[in-house]
């Protein structure tokens, strides 16, 4: 079988799964595809995905368990396609090769084309980031006196950076003098300019 997709990701049941998919009619298949894409675009919403499949199964008098298992393996196809940056045409070809009928394959690939930009953006968002900066808080003020010097007039800036470390976050606190602040701002503006070269 010639596929654009990586064969190893496909379950053994893939031919049976696609024959089963072919059985859905013109109202049922689009609705299933819609549920599938909703989940692909919001991969954290597993509860909702399973809930929607259970409801669908109920409406059409089929086993919820069987439907869920079918969809879980069908899901591997668009997930693999996304990783390989497949085009709509390539995914259509693969679906036909795997046994999905022409009409359904065309419909699926059309939906794929429409959602591709959003799907890529979602995949980019899931890309590993190390010590990701998630929030920044700040305050600035004036030091008016200390235990050593009664009258002072120094501007200070305090920053709190919230950094994601694994599943929890860590707060990093720091203080900057005015010159340090201006240098900080200047360096980050340079970093931004550098990033803009790539967009």
């Amino acid at each position, binding site marked *: 079988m010639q596929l654009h997709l990586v064969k190893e990701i496909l379950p053994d049941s893939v031919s049976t799964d696609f024959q089963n998919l072919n059985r859905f009619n013109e109202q049922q298949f689009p609705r299933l595809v819609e549920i599938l894409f909703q989940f692909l675009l919001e991969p954290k919403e597993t509860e909702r995905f399973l809930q929607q499949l259970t409801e669908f199964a109920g409406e059409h008098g089929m086993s919820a368990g069987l439907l869920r298992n079918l969809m879980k393996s069908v899901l591997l196809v668009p997930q693999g396609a*996304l*990783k*390989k*940056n497949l085009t709509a045409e390539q995914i259509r070809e693969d679906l036909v090769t795997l046994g999905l009928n022409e009409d359904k394959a065309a419909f699926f690939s059309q939906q794929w084309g429409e959602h591709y930009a959003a799907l*890529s953006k979602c*995949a*980019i968002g*899931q*890309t*590993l*980031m*190390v*010590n*990701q*900066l*998630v929030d*920044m808080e*700040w305050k*600035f003020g004036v*030091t008016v006196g*200390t*235990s*050593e*010097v*009664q*009258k*002072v007039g*120094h*501007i*200070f*800036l*305090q920053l709190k*950076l919230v*950094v994601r470390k694994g599943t929890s976050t860590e707060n*990093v*606190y*720091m*203080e*900057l*003098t*005015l010159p*340090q*602040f*201006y*240098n*900080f*701002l200047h*360096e*980050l*503006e*340079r*970093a*931004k300019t*550098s*990033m803009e070269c*790539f*967009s």
Partner: protein
Amino acid sequence: MAAGVSEEDFSNLQLLLKAPSKDAVRDVCVQSHKDGSNHRLIENTAATFSISAAEATRLIQSLHVLSHHVLYQNLTSPEQILAVFPESFHSSLKNLITKILLKNGPTWRTEALSNQISLPQLKDLDWRVDLVSGSDSLSRMAVPTCLVQLKLEDPCPPAGEDTVSTVTVELSRESLDTMLDGLGRIRDQLSVVAGK
């Protein structure tokens, strides 16, 4: 800590008259400012001035009180410092001490302000921009990402920890833009404050 300079302090200061030279007076003034109960300083002073250890202790503590008082009150002119001494104080000694305090004042003030309590201070900033060309979620991509390394120095680290720590943070383009927005607002607010 700043406290008033007492009569007893001034009487202890008269022990400086036993100093072998003006340099010795200057040395003991400068060193007592850092630490008013340093044992080695007390021993050396007792030996140099030919006074007892007890007398050296009192002298150094009183010098410490005086120099910190001058620092706290920010006394920067000769008249202001001379006014601290009682009328009866030895005149040339008073002038010598005043001269020493005036000379070291600015250094002590800078030191005090740089050693004051604060959050860890940003000492250095390095950054790099990478182009992410692939990941487990997308085998081909071209997404820029920014890594920023901050070197922080904690002036009062918890026991057993280093003063210098390094934090490396990764920012997406959106995060960097948002951060720069925030920093821009800080800069605008700072200009308003500075303008007042």
